[in-house]
């Protein structure tokens, strides 16, 4: 018997709707569960005081600092390298087998599990180069991890700038570099910033690679050679060493809120750049 299309539609929508509802419920449950267990422990004191007693007491201030500094170092290294590479690949070279192979290579590197970066970073930066557990070791490792992403998104952003912009610039007598600096990059900025935001987001959530390279020191870092603990690492240690479930949930709540903040900032920046361009 052939079922009339209107009925298959109802059935299909019901199934899809249930699936979506289930997804949303799961996601909301996770966020809600962590926030409900964690938010009560989050207050100004928690955010601003240093961890005491391995994290059983006190707050998470030093880990907040670590969570801000580590991605900063990583992006400070990866941003110029990545955008520069993207500019060079799209503006100064022609599309050859080599560039295609390079692009495929960077895509693959983007897929390598982070634990392997951690292993590499530990052996190469921490031990071989004698940098020890430090912001620098962690930052370099994270930079290599996010470099493919930044190159990829920057390249896409640069390529999406219409060629007409470049041609107009050339016809006005500008050199290639001037064109890149004054025309292409400003127009590609939203896409580039998205890539950087993705990189920052990934660095904040990274645990495996960070523990083995940046270490897990609870001290305030005084230089780039000091070890730091990020909130993700702190949460992991609190949870798995059975130190304090309460503080663990509170740290997780702060983590979720930070991700929310970073996402909102990214959206805000995107809208601002888009509306600016529209002017």
């Amino acid at each position, binding site marked *: 018997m052939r079922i009339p299309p209107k009925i298959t539609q109802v059935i299909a929508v019901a199934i899809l709707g249930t699936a979506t509802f289930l997804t949303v419920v*799961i996601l909301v449950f996770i966020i809600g569960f962590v926030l409900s267990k964690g938010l009560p422990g989050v207050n100004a004191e928690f955010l601003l005081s240093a961890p005491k007693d391995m994290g059983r007491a006190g707050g998470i201030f030093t880990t907040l600092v670590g969570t801000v500094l580590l991605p900063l170092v990583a992006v400070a290294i990866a941003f110029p390298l990545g955008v520069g590479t993207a500019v060079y690949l799209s503006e100064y070279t022609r599309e050859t087998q080599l560039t295609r192979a390079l692009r495929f290579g960077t895509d693959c590197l983007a897929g390598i599990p982070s634990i392997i970066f951690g292993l590499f970073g530990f052996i190469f930066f921490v031990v071989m180069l004698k940098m020890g557990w430090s912001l620098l070791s962690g930052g370099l490792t994270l930079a290599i991890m996010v470099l493919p992403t930044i190159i990829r998104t920057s390249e896409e952003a640069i390529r999406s700038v219409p060629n007409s912009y470049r041609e107009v610039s050339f016809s006005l007598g500008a050199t290639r570099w001037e064109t890149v600096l004054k025309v292409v990059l400003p127009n590609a900025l939203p896409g580039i910033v998205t890539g950087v935001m993705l990189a920052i987001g990934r660095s904040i959530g990274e645990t495996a690679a960070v523990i083995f390279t940046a270490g897990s020191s609870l001290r305030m870092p005084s230089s780039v050679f000091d070890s730091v603990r990020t909130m993700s690492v702190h949460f992991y240690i609190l949870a798995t060493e059975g130190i304090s479930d309460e503080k663990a949930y509170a740290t997780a709540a702060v983590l979720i809120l930070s991700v929310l903040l970073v996402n909102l900032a990214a959206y805000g920046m995107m809208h601002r750049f888009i509306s600016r361009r529209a002017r």
Partner: protein
Amino acid sequence: MKFNGEKIAKYSLMLVAFSALASLLLIAVFILKEGVPFMFKVGLKDFLFSSDWNPQAGKFGIYPMIVASLYVTFGAMLIGAPLGVAGAIFLNEFVPKSVMRVIKPTIELLAGIPSVVFGFLGVMVLAPMIRSYMGGPGLSVLAAAIILGIMVLPTVISISTDAIAAVPNSYREGALALGATRWQSVHMVIIKAARSGIIASIILAMGRALGETMAVIMVAGNTVKIPQTVTDPVRTLTANIALEMANATGLAREALFATGVVLFVVIMILNAIALSAIKSRVRKK
């Protein structure tokens, strides 16, 4: 002077590009240099197909871990792919824009949550549930598959959404003009048009699931044994690297890099498939 500035710009950019690529090459070479010789030392067949993992005794069979990684990833996709694609279709085609504006950021929020939080929730909430309702220790293939499935949902949903949204409206209008219902236009036209993007999202999610370490260590049980049921504990390739890392020197450490090479090869293959799927989409346009 302008001429000079131009040359400086070009050569400094070239330098930058080569440094970046050099650093990426560095890590690739490092991993291969440590891992590949090991595979010949121990023998590829013994490495990949032996179930005897005992680094202290010089035994490096990672077969149980390969099976575990495959089961867990496959399980994760069984959960994440249908839910994700269904969600993407539903949100794009059957839901008003206002609802989308709320749901999309929520999903992206989830994409940013660290994996260790998921792992912890798995230990505190999911594993005990599995243990009481299905037996076994709770820490199992099932627990890992569910947690990973949830973790890759945002990836599948957002990339599939992009693919579906990229289908030109003319396709939808054309189908509706021919008298199709909404659902008919979706499954006969739009999904087919967005197919390569959807497949790409699933394959990318698979790569992520394969590479996940922290969450899996917390919920999978880490037993070196080929699982017989979904409630059996397992150890994935990534968990093995993390667990053995601190104790591994010499040959054992090379074994971990070799495991990394295996993962690298598998993910490279997956990426190649995804890339060709996307390429075919671009060509179709």
